[in-house]
C-alpha cells in the first residue's frame, strides 16, 4: 500500500515538470516579443540590451527555462507588470477567492446530482429515469455563462434580491462569510458554477447506481429478504466511491476552469486574473496563474486517486 502511494506521488513529479514546460513555452508561442511588455516606454538599443541581460532573455531558451524553474520552485513567480505586486501574492489571493466558490458549488452539486442520479438509476428505464436524465443533460448542455447573465438580469436587476457583480460590499479582502450582506454575493456565481457539475454528477451517479444494481450481490440481498429500501441503501453505499472520485475531480476542474463565470460576475478569482493577464499580456502573471492552477489540478487528481485506492483496493490504476 505504501509503495503504491509512493509510486503514485513520484509519478506526479514528471507530470508537474511537463506542466511547467508547457506553461513556460506558452509565452513564447505567442506572437510578438515577450520583452515588449517589460520594457520602459522609450528604451534605446542600449537600454534594451541591458534589460535583456537582466531578465536573461539573451540566454538560450532551455537555460532561461531552468532559471525560471529554479525561481518558481522557491516560490518566486516574479512581479506583475501591471500592478508591480508579487505574482505569488496575486495568484494566491485570487485562488482563495475561487476556492470559496468551488467549496460551495461542489457540495451543492454533489447533493443535488447524487439524489438525481440515485433516483434515475434506481428506476432505470422508466419515465422517471428519462426525466431526471433529461434534466442532467440540460445541465451539461447549457452555456453556464449565459445562465449567469440571465440570473443577473432576473435576480439582480429585475427583482433586486441579489447583487450583480463583485465579491462582497467591501472587496474580497474583508469578505465575511457569516454576514448575509457578504454571503449573498456568493449565491448567483455558485449556482451558475454548480450547473455543469450537477449534470455530470447526476449522470455518473445514475450510471454507477444502475451498474451496481445489476451486480450479483444485489440479488443475494433480495433473496435474503431485505426490503427494497434496504437494498437501495446498499446499492447507494457501493456506488458512492465512484461518484466521490468524480466529485473530487470536479473540484479541481472548477478551480481551474472558472474563468467564464468569474468574467460574468466580475468575481476576483483565478479565472478572472487569468483573463486580465491575457488582455494585458502580463506575462509573469500568466505563467504563474496557469502553472499554479494546473499544479492544483494535478494535486487534486492525485489525492482523489489515492483516496479511491484507499477506499477500494480493487481500483489501482497502473
Amino acid at each position, binding site marked *: 500500500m505504501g509503495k503504491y502511494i509512493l509510486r503514485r506521488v513520484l509519478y506526479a513529479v*514528471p*507530470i*508537474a515538470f*511537463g*506542466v511547467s*514546460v*508547457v506553461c513556460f513555452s*506558452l*509565452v513564447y*508561442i*505567442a*506572437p510578438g516579443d515577450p520583452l515588449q511588455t517589460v520594457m520602459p516606454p522609450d528604451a534605446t538599443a542600449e537600454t534594451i540590451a541591458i534589460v535583456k541581460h537582466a531578465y536573461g532573455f539573451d540566454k538560450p531558451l532551455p537555460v532561461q527555462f531552468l532559471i525560471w524553474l529554479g525561481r518558481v520552485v522557491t516560490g518566486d513567480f516574479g512581479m506583475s507588470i501591471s500592478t508591480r505586486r508579487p505574482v505569488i501574492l496575486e495568484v494566491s489571493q485570487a485562488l482563495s477567492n475561487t476556492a470559496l466558490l468551488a467549496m460551495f458549488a461542489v457540495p451543492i452539486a454533489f447533493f443535488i446530482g447524487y439524489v438525481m442520479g440515485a433516483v434515475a438509476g434506481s428506476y432505470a428505464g422508466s419515465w422517471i429515469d*428519462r426525466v431526471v*436524465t433529461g434534466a442532467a*443533460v*440540460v445541465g*451539461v*448542455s*447549457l*452555456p453556464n*455563462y*449565459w445562465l449567469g*447573465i*440571465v440570473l443577473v*438580469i432576473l435576480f439582480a436587476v429585475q427583482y433586486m434580491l441579489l447583487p450583480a457583480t463583485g465579491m462582497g460590499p467591501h472587496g474580497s479582502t474583508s469578505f465575511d462569510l457569516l454576514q448575509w450582506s457578504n454571503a449573498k454575493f456568493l449565491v448567483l456565481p455558485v449556482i451558475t458554477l454548480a450547473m455543469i457539475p450537477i449534470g455530470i454528477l447526476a449522470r455518473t451517479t445514475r450510471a454507477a447506481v444502475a451498474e451496481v444494481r445489476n451486480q450479483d450481490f444485489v440479488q443475494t440481498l433480495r433473496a435474503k429478504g431485505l426490503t427494497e429500501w434496504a437494498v437501495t441503501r446498499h446499492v447507494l453505499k457501493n456506488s458512492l466511491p465512484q461518484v466521490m472520485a468524480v466529485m473530487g475531480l470536479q473540484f*479541481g*476542474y472548477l*478551480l*481551474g*476552469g472558472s*474563468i*467564464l463565470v468569474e*468574467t460574468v460576475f466580475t468575481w476576483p478569482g483565478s479565472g478572472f486574473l*487569468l*483573463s486580465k493577464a*491575457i488582455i494585458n499580456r502580463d506575462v509573469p502573471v*500568466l505563467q504563474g496563474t*496557469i502553472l499554479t*492552477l*494546473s*499544479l492544483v*489540478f*494535478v494535486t487534486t*487528481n492525485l489525492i482523489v486517486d489515492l483516496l479511491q485506492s484507499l477506499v477500494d483496493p480493487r481500483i489501482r490504476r497502473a
Partner: protein
Amino acid sequence: MTDTIVLDEPLDTFEEQALPATRVRGYWQSVFYRLRHDPVTLAFAAIVLLIVWAAIFAPLIAPFDPYKESIVGRLKPFGWRGHMLGTDELGRDMLTRLLYGGRVSLLMGVVPVLIASLIGGMLGVVGGFAGGRTNTAIMRMMDVFYAFPSVLLAVAIAGAMGGGMANGMLALTLVFIPPMCRVAETATTQIRSLDFIEAARATGARTTTIIRYHVLGNVLGPVFIYASSLISVSILLASGLSFLGLGVRPPIPDWGLMLSTLRQSIYVVPLVCALPGVAIFITSICCNLVSDGLRAAMGVRM
C-alpha cells in the same frame, strides 16, 4: 426477438436443409435495430441533421445578408418587417446571423473533435498495441496535457496565440487529443491481449494487417461514441472562447460572440438577445442525447 424462418413446406434440397434455423444478426445490424426502435434518439438525431443542413445551406435559405446593417432597424423584436427573429444591435437580421453563426459554431465544434480523434486515436492505437516503453512514453505525454482543466488549457492556448478562429480550433484540438488517445489506448489494450489476436499473429499476419482488420474495428466503436459526446463540449468551449473575445472576430457571426455583443442590449429586446444562447443550448443538448442514444445502441460501456 430473433427472426425465425417460417416453414410452409418441408425442406427439400441439401442447401435449404443446411440453412440455420434462425437468421443471425450481425453487430451493426443489431445496432441499427436498436436505434430504429429508439424514437427519442431518432428524433434528436433528426434535429441535429436539420441544424447541420441549415448551417450548410445557410446562404441559400437565409432571408437577408448577415453583414447588412441598418441603423434604423436596430434591436427590433420578432416579426418586425419580415425579420422573423428580430434584428441585432447593428440592425442585421437575427435569423440570418444565427444560420451563418451555426456554420462557424458547428465548424468549431466538429473539426477539433475530428482532428483530435484522428491524431489521438492513432496515437492511442499505436501506444496500446505496441505496449511497453512506447505506450508509457505516449501516455505520459498525454498525462501532462491531462493535467490542465480543459477550459484553462483552451483559454491559455487561444489567449497566448492571440485569438481568432484558427487558433481557437487549434486550442480545442490540443485539448481533446489526450482524452481521445486514452480512450483508444484503453480499447486497444483490452483487445490486444485477446486470443484471436494471438491467433492472427501465429498465422503470420503483419502488424498493420492485424491492426486494420481486428483492432480498428473494435476500437472504432468507443472512439466514435466518445467523439460524439465531445462535440457538444467543443461547441460550448468554442462559444466560451468567442464570448471572451478569443474566438472569431467581428463582424463574423458566431453564437458565442453574438452573446457577448448583445449583452448590452438585453434591456431593449431581451428575447432576441437570448437567441444565440438558445441556439447553443439546442445544438448542444441534441448532440448529447444523440450521443447517449448511440452509446446505448452500440452497447459500449465507457
